[in-house]
């Protein structure tokens, strides 16, 4: 079907010079670096790649055993462990929110001059960089090994991201209200209360909720070093081959996490977008007195 050419191009083509195909240096660099990393890791890592072939067969057997041994008997314990993970994540989120909140305004370019802002940003970066497990280990000598340790470690670790991203939200607010409050004689705190918070708070709160979703996963992970919760529950069940606990634990962690995600993302949308138009209309009718106790002139 393919004809040899787009017809009739002769006359104009003669006057034009086709460019040389340029050498895609960036693309080649990336490709070579990635391949080198891949090759080095694949050859030198202590992994028995051959076992990958057995994995599908074993997975079928494993799932079969999970189904065979399925039992609701450990449901209570599993739910309790899941609840503990959620509780740890929640306290950690609140802690992170409370500790990061004052720093947010010190880290925002439109509120704080750079002499103060830069050091605060650096502090936030340090908190962001430290993995939760490192913080948890550092806290063990003081708090022992338990849910509170996990919550405090995750809370401190949340300061970095919460502070940085909330500061970016504050930086993106409309400048007009800030100037308006300043023009009517408002000081620093008035500006915060009447110009910054009304604009930034919904998004910041939405971001706290998002961090809560992440923290649930983190608390499950920290469970394996012994802070409690569903992570430790499943890891121990796997170690001891208690199949009915593995299956049920997985089911619980998947369903609970998805449920919390769904609720949280709905709340976040509501926070950012405000009430639905229908709800808004209902409220307006109520407040302008359309109801039986209406006091309007008509």
């Amino acid at each position: 079907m393919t004809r040899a050419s787009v017809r009739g191009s002769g006359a104009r083509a003669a006057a034009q010079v086709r460019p040389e195909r340029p050498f895609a240096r960036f693309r080649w660099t990336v490709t070579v670096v990635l391949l080198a990393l891949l090759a080095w890791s694949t050859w030198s890592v202590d992994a028995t790649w051959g076992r990958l072939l057995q994995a599908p067969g074993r997975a079928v057997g494993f799932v079969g055993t999970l189904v065979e041994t399925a039992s609701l008997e450990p449901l209570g314990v599993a739910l309790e462990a899941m609840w503990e993970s959620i509780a740890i994540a929640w306290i950690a989120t609140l802690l992170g929110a409370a500790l990061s909140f004052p720093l947010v305004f010190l880290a925002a370019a439109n509120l704080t001059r750079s002499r103060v802002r830069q050091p605060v940003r650096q502090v936030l970066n340090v908190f962001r960089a430290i993995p939760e497990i490192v913080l948890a280990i550092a806290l063990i000598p003081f708090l022992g090994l338990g849910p509170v340790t996990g919550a405090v470690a995750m809370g401190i670790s949340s300061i970095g991201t919460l502070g940085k991203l909330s500061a970016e939200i504050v930086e993106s607010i409309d400048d007009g209200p800030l100037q308006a409050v300043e023009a009517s004689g408002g000081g620093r705190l008035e500006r915060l209360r009447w110009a910054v918070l009304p604009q930034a708070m919904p998004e910041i709160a939405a971001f706290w909720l998002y961090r809560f979703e992440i923290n649930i996963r983190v608390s499950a992970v920290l469970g394996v070093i012994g802070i409690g919760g569903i992570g430790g529950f499943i890891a121990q069940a796997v170690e001891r081959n208690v199949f009915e606990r593995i299956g049920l634990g997985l089911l619980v962690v998947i369903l609970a996490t998805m449920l919390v995600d769904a609720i949280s993302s709905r709340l976040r949308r509501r926070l950012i977008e405000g009430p639905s138009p229908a709800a808004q209309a209902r409220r307006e009718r109520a407040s302008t007195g359309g109801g039986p106790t209406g006091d309007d002139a008509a």
Partner: protein
Amino acid sequence: MIEFEGAEVRYPGGVRALQGVDLRIDDGELIVVVGLSGAGKSTLIRAINGLVPLTSGRVTVGERTLPGLDRRALRELRAQVGMIFQSFNLVSRSTVLNNVLMGRLHHVPLWRSLSGLYRAQDRELAMEALELVEIVEKAYVRAGNLSGGQQQRVGIARALAQQPSVLLADEPVASLDPPTSHVVMRYLQQINRELGITTLINLHFLDLARAYADRVIGLRDGRLVYDGPAAQADEAVFEEIYGRSLTADDVLEGQGGL
């Protein structure tokens, strides 16, 4: 040959974008479709390559008739119909050449388009298409770095790389300034004359329509209200098509700035 028979398009909201359109277009014609925005120009053009499905009636393009084509036949039909868009629809991060090669997608095996390893003959066709609109020197430039007029020429080259027998242009100059508009229109006219590709162009500037068309088709509220040679489409005809008296906005030369 393209033939509309009782073509109707009703959008889900209930808007009737095309109503009972009967139209016959011969090979090699250059037709300009005019009408106010919302008159159904875009729908008419998109009905030809099936981007907008008819709700009743038929459109025949060559030996294929819509509706009733399976996915494969529809793609074959689209491959023989090139399309040019108001907002150019280029991938601004890709090179000009890669954009033009999109015109070859129907003829290229999937593994080649997925990997980007096009055949030499496809690259040759793309280069020739770029030469036709005299922009081959930009072949390895990112499309987003070109001016609007240059981007539209790349858009034309992409359509030409399909080796189409029909060319559809949906408001090709609406995003361009007057001098650039004439450049683009002249390329479309040359392509129609030299390659004999049947060309349909949506426009809302009546002076451009008269200057470049062989035949003018007028749409109002989804109905065909005028069909005749461009020479006879005077202002009275346009007032009839638009359903109102003409203003400076209706002619390209009346546009501000120049």
